[in-house]
């Protein structure tokens, strides 16, 4: 299929391109920008007048709930949600059931995802067998099977020796290690940021030092082992500052933040809103503002959706018993646009946080729009408002703290490998 996308505002964060021009797609790739390539005759035209055309979004954390949790969501439903959100590449954490700790499981997931022929799925393998924090997984084999990185998801990895060995082993094969910084003993019973709101509501707290102590351990071990480390979903001002310093010292560390955490704080819990029961916990306003600044100055490399579909039954419980997590795939773009507008970040920079920069973290050839690149594209109306409600979401997870709000930024078309995989209903 040859596609001519005309009159759009073409944004390629990688090359800092931002101008109104045409783009031509052929044989699954970007064939040309501006003028059509020789002998190009389009079989399909998209009028992108008034729309932004950018690389397909890259999401560093989306739980697809397969294998093991199909009653919450299936690959089918969540891949639909991804492309409706303009996401063309996504990484999924290994805390499935069973965890992604064997090549066979990874191959099966890749195979299932390929069969759906939508977004590209990049499994993150388990760092230890069964995510139990004891024995290393066959990282080299898992990498051959398709794992792009290794993580411990939300499971505790307390043993510093195991963490060091895992980093050493991963570094042997130059495999990246993704970790979320949270000390298990300091957070075991906690369900909310240890601060004013948790004190008022009588909720067990997770102190900021649960993040900084774990982060300090990870950064020192990264220094010791030379492993490439990515910090998942930083949550505190102090944590952002530690990453800033580590980067200054030249440590090969990258970092992401969840789209929820650049907008919300503990205050949003109100009176026990279980949609705000998230991991990591929403911290205070100072933390939230530090996350926004860290994202703006580049300390934080990427924004992820932290997509975690949870069914109503698991949310209609007292706050502490309610399952943590929120749906996010379809909110990633609007939430990043909201941040860009509030923080006065140019669109081309803002989009880099969900395209070229997470692609670099993943180490994939994606998130770019130059001729010859794969035609993974997201075409969206930056000023179109839509209401976040159960019926407007494709994901099987309908719970989000933003439920009921109007958001700006609606995806109109998503292309993967030069095929139109999503087209919004005209409305």
């Amino acid at each position, binding site marked *: 299929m040859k596609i001519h996308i005309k009159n759009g505002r073409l944004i390629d964060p990688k090359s800092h391109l931002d101008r109104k021009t045409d783009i031509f797609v052929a044989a699954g790739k970007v064939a040309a920008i501006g003028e059509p390539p020789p002998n190009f005759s389009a079989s399909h035209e998209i009028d992108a007048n008034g729309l932004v055309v950018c690389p397909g979004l890259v999401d560093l954390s989306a739980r697809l709930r397969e294998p093991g949790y199909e009653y919450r969501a299936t690959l089918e439903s969540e891949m639909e949600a991804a492309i409706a959100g303009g996401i063309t590449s996504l990484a999924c954490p290994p805390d499935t059931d069973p965890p992604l700790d064997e090549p066979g499981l990874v191959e099966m997931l890749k195979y299932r995802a390929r069969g759906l022929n939508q977004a590209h799925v990049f499994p993150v393998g388990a760092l230890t067998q069964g995510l139990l924090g004891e024995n290393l997984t066959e990282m080299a084999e898992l990498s051959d099977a398709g794992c792009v990185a290794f993580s411990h998801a939300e499971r505790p990895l307390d043993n510093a020796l195991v963490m060091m060995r895992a980093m050493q082993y991963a570094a042997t094969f130059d495999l990246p290690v993704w970790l979320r910084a949270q000390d298990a003993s300091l957070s075991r019973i906690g369900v909310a940021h*240890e*601060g*004013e709101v*948790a*004190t*008022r*509501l*009588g*909720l*067990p*707290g997770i*102190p900021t030092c649960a993040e900084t102590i774990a982060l300090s351990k990870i950064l020192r071990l990264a220094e010791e082992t030379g492993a490439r480390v990515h910090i998942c979903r930083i949550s505190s001002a102090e944590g952002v500052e530690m990453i800033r310093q580590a980067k200054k010292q030249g440590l090969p560390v990258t970092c992401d933040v969840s789209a929820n955490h650049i907008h919300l704080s503990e205050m949003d819990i*109100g*009176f*026990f809103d279980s949609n705000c029961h998230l991991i990591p916990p929403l911290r205070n306003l100072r933390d939230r503002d530090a996350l926004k600044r860290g994202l703006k100055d580049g300390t934080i490399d990427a924004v992820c959706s932290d997509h975690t579909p949870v069914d109503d*039954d698991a949310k*209609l*419980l*007292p*706050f*502490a*018993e309610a399952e943590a997590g929120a749906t996010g795939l379809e909110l990633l773009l609007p939430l990043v646009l909201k941040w860009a507008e509030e923080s006065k970040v140019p669109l081309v920079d803002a989009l880099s946080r969900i395209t070229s920069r997470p692609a670099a973290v993943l180490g994939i050839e994606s998130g770019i729009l130059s001729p010859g690149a794969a035609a993974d594209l997201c075409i969206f109306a930056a000023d179109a408002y839509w209401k976040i409600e159960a019926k407007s979401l494709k994901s099987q997870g309908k719970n989000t703290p933003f439920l009921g709000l109007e958001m700006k930024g609606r995806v109109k078309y998503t292309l993967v490998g030069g095929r139109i995989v999503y087209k919004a209903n005209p409305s």
Partner: protein
Amino acid sequence: MQRQINKNGELQHLLTIEGLPAAMLHHILDTAESFVSVTEREVKKVPLLRGKAIFNLFFEPSTRTRTTFEIAAKRLSADVINLNISASSQSKGETLLDTVNNLSAMHADMFIVRHAQSGAAHLIANHVAPEIHVINAGDGRHAHPTQALLDMYTIRHFKRDFHELRVAIIGDIMHSRVARSQIHALTTLGVPEVRVIAPKTLLPKGVEHLGVHPYHDMSKGLKDVDVLLMLRLQNERMQGALLPSAQEYFKYYGLTPEKLALAKPDAIVMHPGPMNRGIEIDSAVADGPQSVILPQVTFGIAVRMAVMSILAGS
């Protein structure tokens, strides 16, 4: 937040003291005062809630609170149904809201809820039909509003004016729903100085944002205090990483006659019960002339009658 007050400004549920205006608290206390005489009469019944079905929903074991609610409801002529849920549906895997939906179908007028999780009463109040009222009888560490109200009643009874008082809350503030509700009630009613006294392991982070002054030393914290609100120390907190031993706790934070002497000579001592004698309070104080622990219990019934009649009385 104001879900417990309906659009006419009336109390729809009683979930927490937080956010209730002082006038509302005084209205409850005034109503309770009119019921105290009822409890002293030979025929201790008024027909205010005749025909109403009140369900005591206790997901956590309790004898004292449940009994006082039951007595209060019966004195208002309501029908009371006691459900000890921890032993029945929860163990069969029924969810909290399923239980509530089932009981709502039995035409309940009011639920009195005790639950181990903070926010359980809010969850229920958000899901019941608008004609059903919910009283929080204790949710996790969050709130126990009727206990705080009966404490305020007792303080008002013995001290009259809240605006001149210095009040100290002593003990396990961290895990106490009673303390949180007391703090909101005291600050709302205009008490100028509320202190909390505990070792640092038993004080929640940022407690001063609730409008209280933290102390770690009884000799400083009790100085010139008018009212001492003791808290129960749960057995499971007495060892481990929070406290080394009950003995050491008693030595430094247990209320003895010597420590009580630091407070004002006419200071009153209160305790929500059940007491751990020799751990948070010495028997000489608990049974002494400054103790108003037994009047608290009597007032507790009147206060609960007041809350129920304000919620569901026609």
